[in-house]
Structure formats: structure tokens, C-alpha cells
């Protein structure tokens, strides 16, 4: 029983962290139409930033032993700064070109982390991170529950922040730029500036998810910033429903559940000679989910609501 509970706590923690990253992507794609193909770069900047600032002294750069919350804020800032630089360089690109450029940034990020031994620990990654509140909550289920609570607070705060933004004139402006940039310009809007603001904000949210993820495992390595994570986060948004924050969160739990279940099912029921390919089969599954969803229900399980999500005005339909 304890085993089941601790597994559920573990599952909910990871799913909630990923949900935060999906919310960040929803700001990019769902609201602004920015095709960010390099989610892991910003997620990774948050994770690496947090562990380098908050970790114990290391042979490589980092290990400044900052208090956890400041290290986490530093990780978010690292993701924001990276996004600002990448944004200035690439945001003039449109759609698939932006996706290719940001995908390249993510691959470059992973390779830098893997090879820059003196900077971020190279292939071994960064260990030796003191998890927060250990002296208070121990190291077992108690800590896991406390940390789940913290992650849920972060998820709810992010959700409320984005919902407020989405309903504000800022959200309306993002959608206008997503729909038709030239029309928005003809109405006095400056798409370049707004796109950059959205890109940096969404990436900072991905950085928050990365920082929480690194804290949870007290470890981050180049294996955590592989392109598969970008695809998983995209699958979550597409299945949940781009342009709908509730859909983004639901998609994260659904896809992470399906991913975990398929891994477990394959290891348990697949013939032994298939086991070797379990990882690849999961890749195929996630790809099929994205393609199937785009073909048969491109608006996702929770479609964006147009017109009626404003309780202040009466419906006339």
C-alpha cells in the first residue's frame, strides 16, 4: 500500500512539474503562435541553473550553495536570459523556421552540457545538491509529500498567473498577433516586442519546471535534456488543447500517465526480445499520439474557447 502511495506521489510530482512546462509552451504556441521546438533548452537552463547555484562546491563551475529558493529563482532567470538572447536572434523567423532554429538551440544546449566538463560536469551531470527542507521532513515519503505540495503550489500559481494574463488585454493582443501579425501592425501593435515578451515569459516558466525537476532528483545530466522531452511536452499540449490552460495541465497528466503505463506494460508483457526496443516503441507511441491527434482532433481534448470565456458580457449567440 505504502508502495502504491509513494509511487502515486512520485508520479504526481513529475506530472505536475511537466504540466508547468506545458503551460509555458501554451503561452508560446497556444496564445502567441510561437513554434518553440527547443523546450528542453529552457527547461534545462532552469535545472542546471538551480543546481549550479544551489549545489555544494564542485570541481566544475557552480556550487555556490545559495538557499534553495534563490537558486530556483536564479534558474528561472537563467532560462529567461537564454530565451531573451535566442529570441532576439530567431523571433523574426516564422513557424517551421522558428521551430528548426529553436530545436537547434536545444541540441546545442545538450551538447554543450555534455562536453563542457569544466562548466557543468559534462556527461556525468551535476550531483551533490542538498534538497530543501530535508532536516525538517526527512528523506522518505514525508519529504516527497512536502515537495509534491510545493510543486502543486507552483503549478497553481503558474496557472492563475497565465489565466489572468490570457483574460487581460495582454492575452487578447497575443492572440491577435497569433492570428494575423500584419493586421495587428495595421492596428498600431508592435508584434516583435510582444513576441519577445511572450517568448521570455513562457521560457522562464519552462525554467521554473526545470528547476523543480532538478531539485526533485537532486541531479541533472545531459540525459535530462534530450529532444524526446520537447516532443513529450508538445504531445501534452496538443492532446490537452492548445490555447486552453486547463487542457495543458490535463494533457500533461494524461500523456505522462500513458507514457509511464506504456513503459510498465512493455516491460511486463512484451516478449523478451522486444524489451530491448521498449524505448523506441515508446517513441513510436508518442509520435502516433501527436499525429493521430492532429489528424482527428487538432483542437485537443479541451479546445480553446472563443468569445464565451468572458463572463462580464452577455452571450448573444
Amino acid at each position, binding site marked *: 500500500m505504502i508502495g502504491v502511495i509513494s509511487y502515486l506521489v512520485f508520479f504526481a510530482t513529475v506530472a505536475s512539474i511537466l504540466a508547468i512546462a506545458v503551460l509555458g509552451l501554451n503561452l508560446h504556441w497556444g496564445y502567441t503562435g510561437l513554434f518553440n521546438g527547443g523546450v528542453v533548452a529552457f527547461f534545462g537552463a532552469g535545472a542546471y541553473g538551480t543546481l549550479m547555484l544551489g549545489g555544494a562546491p564542485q570541481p566544475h563551475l557552480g556550487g555556490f550553495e545559495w538557499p534553495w529558493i534563490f537558486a530556483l529563482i536564479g534558474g528561472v532567470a537563467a532560462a529567461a536570459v537564454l530565451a531573451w538572447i535566442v529570441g532576439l536572434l530567431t523571433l523574426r523567423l516564422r513557424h517551421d523556421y522558428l521551430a528548426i532554429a529553436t530545436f537547434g538551440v536545444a541540441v546545442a544546449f545538450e551538447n554543450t552540457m555534455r562536453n563542457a566538463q569544466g562548466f557543468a560536469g559534462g556527461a556525468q551531470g551535476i550531483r551533490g545538491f542538498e534538497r530543501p527542507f530535508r532536516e525538517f521532513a526527512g528523506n522518505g515519503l514525508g519529504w516527497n509529500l512536502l515537495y509534491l505540495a510545493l510543486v502543486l503550489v507552483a503549478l497553481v500559481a503558474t496557472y492563475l498567473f497565465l489565466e489572468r494574463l490570457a483574460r487581460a488585454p495582454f492575452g487578447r*493582443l497575443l492572440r491577435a498577433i497569433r*492570428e494575423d501579425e*500584419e493586421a495587428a501592425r495595421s*492596428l498600431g501593435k508592435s508584434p516583435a516586442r510582444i513576441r519577445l515578451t511572450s517568448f521570455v515569459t513562457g521560457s522562464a516558466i519552462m525554467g521554473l519546471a526545470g528547476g523543480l525537476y532538478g531539485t526533485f532528483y537532486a541531479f541533472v545530466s545531459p540525459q535530462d535534456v534530450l529532444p524526446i522531452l520537447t516532443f513529450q511536452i508538445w504531445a501534452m499540449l496538443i492532446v490537452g488543447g492548445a490555447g486552453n490552460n486547463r487542457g495543458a495541465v490535463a494533457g500533461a497528466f494524461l500523456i505522462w500517465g500513458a507514457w509511464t503505463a506504456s513503459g510498465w506494460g512493455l516491460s511486463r508483457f512484451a516478449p523478451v526480445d522486444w524489451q530491448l526496443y521498449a524505448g523506441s516503441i515508446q517513441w513510436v507511441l508518442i509520435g502516433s499520439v501527436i499525429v493521430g491527434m492532429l489528424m482527428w482532433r487538432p483542437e485537443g481534448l479541451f479546445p480553446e474557447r472563443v468569445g*464565451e470565456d468572458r463572463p462580464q458580457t452577455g452571450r448573444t449567440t
Partner: protein
Amino acid sequence: MRGSVAEALGIVGLTRRFGALRAVDGVDLSVERGTMTGLIGPNGAGKSTLFNLLTGTLRPDAGTVTLMGQDVTRMRPEARFAAGLGRTFQIPRPFARMSVLDNVMTAPTAQLGERLWGPFLRPRAVAAQEARLRARAMEVLDFVTLAPLAQHPAGKLSGGQTKLLELARVLMGEPSVILLDEPAAGVNPALTELLIGKIEELNRGGTTFVIIEHDMDLVMRHCAPIVALAEGRVVFQGSAAEAQSNQVLIDAYLGGVHA
């Protein structure tokens, strides 16, 4: 620099080339305030290119543009809207996956809540501004007869309704000059009459219009003066009566119709 007080748009020597083609070739044109200028000419005459030069979407190779006496030649499109120049598009560009009301409320510039932190730092000021904008937007929608469709997705409107929506969006900026690119194209006759009626009402209120239109009957009945472009140049400027008796114009454009 010319630029009389009575001039809404002053266009001097405006030129734009695409490779070897001179799409707009040294156009001089003075649009007087309060007029409804009809801009005609065959396909490829440079009418839409001229509009794009006026709104700043395209940069001219030579020449200047003044708006209400102010030189806007180097201004970006978004700044020109704030300076009082509105435009609609030949192929309408609604924000399709947004409600009609949201389309219209997007338009005004300098909204507090359009800044990232606005809704969090100054929630009351933003809410008050939103309430004012909503009331104004409903007035404008009422004027263009779209008020009952305020909560509809703009992408579901008919072609004519979309033209009305574009006009409503532009009106939110309270522009002094409005450029309309083929307002009657693809719109049923009843809705065209409504649209033209609204435009004339605004024109009587002092708004200057420049209208690209292929419906000659409509242009002759409603526009004065009429300006004809051919191969990037102004080949005629005058009243409807003069246009119908002008040999150059008949050769360049009306010829095909009358022959």
C-alpha cells in the same frame, strides 16, 4: 515640403520598384481633408502598392508621405495607426479565432493591460479601461450593425460582415484618414449599400477616405475626386463627369468596359 492645412495626405514623388518593375512611379497626389477619393486603375496599376507605401508596410525607394501635415515617410506601420491612419485589406484579415468584440477591443493603442505586468500591478485601472473600451466597442459594433454578433468567432462571419468588422476595428483608433482596399469586392449588394452608407456617414463627420474600388458605378456615384493610376503613374484626376469623358482614362481603363 508642401503640406497645406487642408491636406490630409500629401504624396510627393513616391516611387517603389520591384526589380525592373516600377510598381509606383513618381506619384504626386494631394488628398484634401474631408474628401472621399476614389482610386481606380487596371490590375497591376500599383493601387495596392501605393496603399502599402502609405501605411508603411512597404518602404518607398523615393518620395515622401505626409499625414495631416506630419512627415510619416520613415514611420513604422504601427506608429502610423497611432498617428491617425487606418486601413482595411483587399482580402479581409480578421483575427479569426477571436470573438468579434475582442477583434474590435484589440485596436486601441496604449492599453494599460497590454503590458505584461499591467493586469497585476494596476488591476483597477486596467479593469476601468476595459469597461470603457468595451462600451466604446459596442457602440462602434452597433454603428456597423454587428452588435448582435459580438460574441461570435470572427472567422465565422460572412465576407461582407468581415468588411464591416475591419471598418469597426479601424474606427476604434479614431483615425483621421481611412484607406479602404476594395470594400465592395465579394460583398452582396445589400451589404455594400449598408457599408457605403456608413462610410458616407463617417465622411460627413469629417473623416477622409481613400477607396480602391473596381465597381465603377459605385465609384462614380460616391467618390470625388477620382484618381486613376496606370503603370504606377497618376493618369487622371478629376470629377466623375470628367472621368467619363476623359479620353486617356477611357483608353487606359474604361475602354475595355465601353468597347
